[in-house]
């Protein structure tokens, strides 16, 4: 089952060509909604108040159980936001698959915000262009973890390279049953959830 999920995540061509395939594994059962990741992300990336590169949703199941689900940009393999961008400001970096925004090319049309099925994009009122999670690409190539991962007190977030079979994220995605958000969109997100409640997949 996990193997099927992994093979669906990245097209075969991309798996072979890319140097890295950054991905995140989120164990929903370990998140207790402390917002440390939200605060760390905002501090690390100068995210203005009122908008979020990452956030935590609080859901209540029919049985009354409260579940917290961290969300952010999924750095989709087949990203709808990249296709919608009229100037190519939003692009999928070929060497590692990160979905990034070139601030110098963004005209602020809002097409990517409308196209993102996850609500992960927003206009940054300070920068004046569209903003979103970058998987802390300025940190990961220095050998550090993304700020949200580093700040998580329970280890609910695990980040790594799927091209490295020994990386924790590869191991977890292979061994654990995972699901991804809104698979019906065909976006092929690179964030794999464990114990994702159906209420969070709307």
């Amino acid at each position: 089952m996990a193997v099927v999920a992994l093979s669906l995540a990245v097209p075969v061509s991309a798996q072979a060509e890319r140097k890295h395939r950054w991905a995140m594994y989120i164990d929903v059962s370990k998140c207790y909604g402390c917002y440390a990741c939200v605060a760390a992300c905002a501090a690390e990336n100068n995210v203005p108040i009122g908008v979020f590169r990452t956030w935590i949703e609080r859901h209540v199941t029919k049985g009354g159980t409260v579940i917290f689900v961290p969300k952010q940009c999924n750095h989709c393999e087949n990203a709808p936001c990249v296709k919608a961008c009229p100037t190519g400001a939003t692009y999928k970096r070929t060497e590692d698959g990160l979905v990034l925004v070139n601030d110098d090319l963004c005209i602020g049309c809002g097409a990517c915000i409308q196209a993102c099925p996850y609500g992960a994009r927003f206009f940054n009122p300070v920068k004046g262009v569209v903003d979103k999670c970058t998987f802390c690409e300025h940190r990961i190539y220095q050998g550090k973890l993304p700020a949200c991962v580093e700040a998580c007190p329970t280890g609910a977030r695990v980040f790594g390279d799927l091209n490295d079979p020994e990386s924790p994220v590869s191991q977890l995605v292979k061994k654990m049953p995972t699901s991804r958000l809104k698979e019906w969109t065909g976006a092929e997100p690179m964030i794999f959830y464990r114990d994702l409640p159906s209420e969070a997949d709307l």
Partner: protein
Amino acid sequence: MTYPLGYLYPNEFAQPLQWLPVLFSYSLLISGADLLLLALIAYLFNKLKRTVPVLLIVGLAFYTVVLLGPLADLRNPDRAVLLFSHSHLFPTAENPGLALITLQGAVLWPLGFVLAALFTLLYFAPANYKRYLSTRNPFYKLLSLGVKSRTPFLNAVLKILAVVALIPLAFWAVYPATLFTMQTALWIWRNWQTLLPMYFADTFVVATAAAILAMWIYGIRKVGDDINGVLLIHGAASISVVALLVAQVAIWNAQYGGSPYIQVIDQVASWITPVVLLYLVTFILSLVAVKWRAVSLVVPFTGVAAALLNKWNIIVRAQYAQRSGLTFIGPAEDVIAHELPVMIGIVAFGIFLSIVLSILFPAEGHD
């Protein structure tokens, strides 16, 4: 603001409306493309002979200014030129796919403009040559492009131009609807199956409303029985919109009746009742006006009122239904206030261009 089923998509709460809707809905309400479409179709079928010149002049004027709406909608309008210099038209490894905004803005609009302008110039060329002969003003000779009379060859060229121009103009007439239907995020748009055909029918409601108004301004007696044809198109388009709206409500009820989604759908569907009533009024009036011509002066206003309410519902209110489809954020009332001056400015520019074009291409002068 309530969060009935969890804390969903907080970025949506910061800015629920992504395309400043007033400008967008206005600019494409009378995009000019619809009027030009009507003119070209009428020309191809040899109908509305006395109305085609007016449609061409007003259509070209508004088509020329239509991009100002989306331009004012950009957060960085100074970078609009990037749409041409960095067009996302061909898929690459970093930028797969093709951006609809680029296709419409950087390819189809210029193409439509060139074809429509060329058609208009050639259509009025013999009349302008006559004006040159009577006034000896070289400017009119320039406008005539050297065409001295309406020859079979000219007619053939005009027909070819009309057929080719129909393609970009038809795309532009339904531009917003294509944007809405192609995105995967917003729940209401994603579940509005009749949106594209409804928008296309609505194009003709607005185009004919504008045409009828233009006929009254130009002189209702001069156009003769041409107005009856326009009124019938208006009526047929109106009743088509009604049918498609009613069908959509039925589809929603069949798909989501009894589920939590229906509460959000109701927020949008509740506006559909007055919209349908207005379209029915304009439909009935258009039929009545065929017999009693004076009534036709009311038809443009009922038609445009119906279209305005309908598009406000589609473009603005549908965006307040969240991506999850489970929450309706609620409309903000201050949307119009700061957009109104820009909106009026664009309309005024369109009217100004119509006046200029009517001087260059006098409707009385064509063959």
